[in-house]
């Protein structure tokens, strides 16, 4: 009875567009990659996950849209609630979960088709058929990702012809076109030149008004620039989390202090 009550409380706390994680554990075979993760991510703001490489940042992010499913020999226990729905529940539809999130990966992977089709891919899958509607969507989201002016004359050329920076913005447009509430980024600027990186960061700052954004980054300065909320991970655990300012200026844990000062990296 109490357990049930607790459940519904955490459900209630998990508002639309937010991600709540209860007792999440992930094992790759025997390797314990995420240990007892408990955290609620704030909505309509940018949460940055920082920590040395191999600490489990990507793993955590992949739990949110269940890309983790396709890994060999994986065990996931615990709960991840998105908009209050347990996404690992047996009845959860994985495609519905993924529709609620856009993903930017470490380097852009344009789909093997034209610029136009890349953006239209998601909406088409989810039932938009009218050409005029698709045109509208493509234009809207390319503008949203500040790519429209650069590509409006060559929408039908292969997406692979774009520069890496443009490709990453295309991936952003493509992700936004499925109308998610949440944007996930796994070191989305690590393959980009400084100007393209700046583009993406600016975009995130604009988008946070409407979206919940979770970005993995190993660049502390980037976290400082864009994050409202910060999660510091170390060896599969969340060491400390809180408003970005507090963590960066006044870390409580020794490991966080060392990381922020650049002693562990």
């Amino acid at each position, binding site marked *: 009875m109490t357990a049930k009550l607790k459940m519904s409380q955490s459900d209630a706390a998990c508002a639309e567009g937010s991600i709540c994680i209860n007792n999440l554990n992930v094992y790759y075979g025997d390797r314990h990659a995420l240990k007892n993760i408990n955290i609620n991510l704030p909505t309509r703001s940018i949460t940055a996950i920082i920590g040395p490489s191999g600490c489990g940042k990507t793993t955590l992010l992949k739990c949110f*849209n269940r*890309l983790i499913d*396709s*890994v*060999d*020999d994986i065990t996931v226990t615990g709960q991840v609630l998105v908009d209050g729905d347990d996404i690992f529940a047996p009845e959860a539809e994985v*495609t*519905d979960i*993924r*529709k609620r*999130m*856009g*993903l930017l*990966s*470490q*380097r852009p*992977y344009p*789909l*093997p*088709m*034209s610029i136009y089709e890349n953006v239209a*891919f*998601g909406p088409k*899958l*989810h039932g938009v058929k009218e050409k005029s509607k698709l045109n509208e969507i493509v234009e809207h989201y390319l503008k949203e990702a500040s790519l429209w002016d650069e590509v409006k004359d060559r929408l039908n050329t*292969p997406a*692979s012809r774009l520069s890496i920076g443009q490709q990453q913005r295309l*991936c952003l447009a*493509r*992700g936004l076109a*499925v109308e998610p509430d949440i944007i996930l980024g796994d070191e989305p600027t690590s393959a980009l030149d400084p100007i393209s990186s700046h583009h993406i960061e600016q975009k995130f700052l604009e988008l946070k008004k409407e979206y919940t954004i979770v970005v993995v980054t190993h660049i502390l300065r980037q976290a400082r620039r864009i994050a409202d909320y910060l999660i510091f991970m170390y060896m599969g655990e969340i060491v400390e989390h809180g408003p970005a300012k507090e963590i960066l200026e006044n870390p409580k844990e020794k490991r966080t202090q060392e990381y922020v000062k650049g002693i562990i990296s």
Partner: protein
Amino acid sequence: MKRYKIEEKVFNVLMKVATGIILLSLIWILATIVYKGLPYMSWDMVSRTPQGGFYMGKEGGVLNAIVGSLYLAGGSTILALFISLPVVLYLNVYRRKKSAFSTFIRSSLDILWGIPSIVYGAFGFTLMLLFGLKTSLLAGIITLTLLIIPIMIRAMDEVMLTIPKGLFEASYSLGATRFETATKVAIRKTLPGIVTAILISFGRAVGDAASVLFTAGFTDNIPTSLSQPAASLPLAIFFQLGTPVPEVQGRAYASALILTLLILAISLSSRYFTKRYLKNKI
């Protein structure tokens, strides 16, 4: 001289010699076929079936074998495609994880690839006896299908294995199912490779004599149904070369020339196709 310089020199010479040998034998083969076959090439060769006394040097052509080969190779390639594509997509999209099962499938196919075609011929023949089939186009197609499936699957598999994991994840993260990812992303990404795999298989099917010998048989007529026997170019070459008549032996080389041109045409058109595709699509 420094050691690495000598190494480089030796290697350089070796490479050139090897390349030379390959080019030379290729040119030699082509030259022989053209030199011996061209004088016997005629409109009759490609437009008529063997008439009475053809194998003694009388009139006619090998249209029966040309059409038979196209039927056999075309039929088996299409049939093999319908079997191979699902297997390849299953291995690469549905069972992306490395499992004992997929390793087992891949090594089985590699072994099947290595089995000589006469064994497939014999196996096809046993199947025919089992099902009470006569030598026929159908039996030939089925046997050739078995022969080329391992080639087709492994050739497609190799290109699918090169698709980066991130591309699959990108598709999934947009809410695509595995089926949609397979058909809309994986196939498109590897289309040139898939076409190549199909053509390699077609080439193998059109050039194989041993597996159709017992199964499709040989006939001077063009088959009008799947249950009739069918001729093929490799066997036409074989039978004509086996006669003592110089005229007929010359026609064997002409038939070889036809077979070579057929394969060349297919290979060139596929190249053209993939080039255009690469330019416009991916």
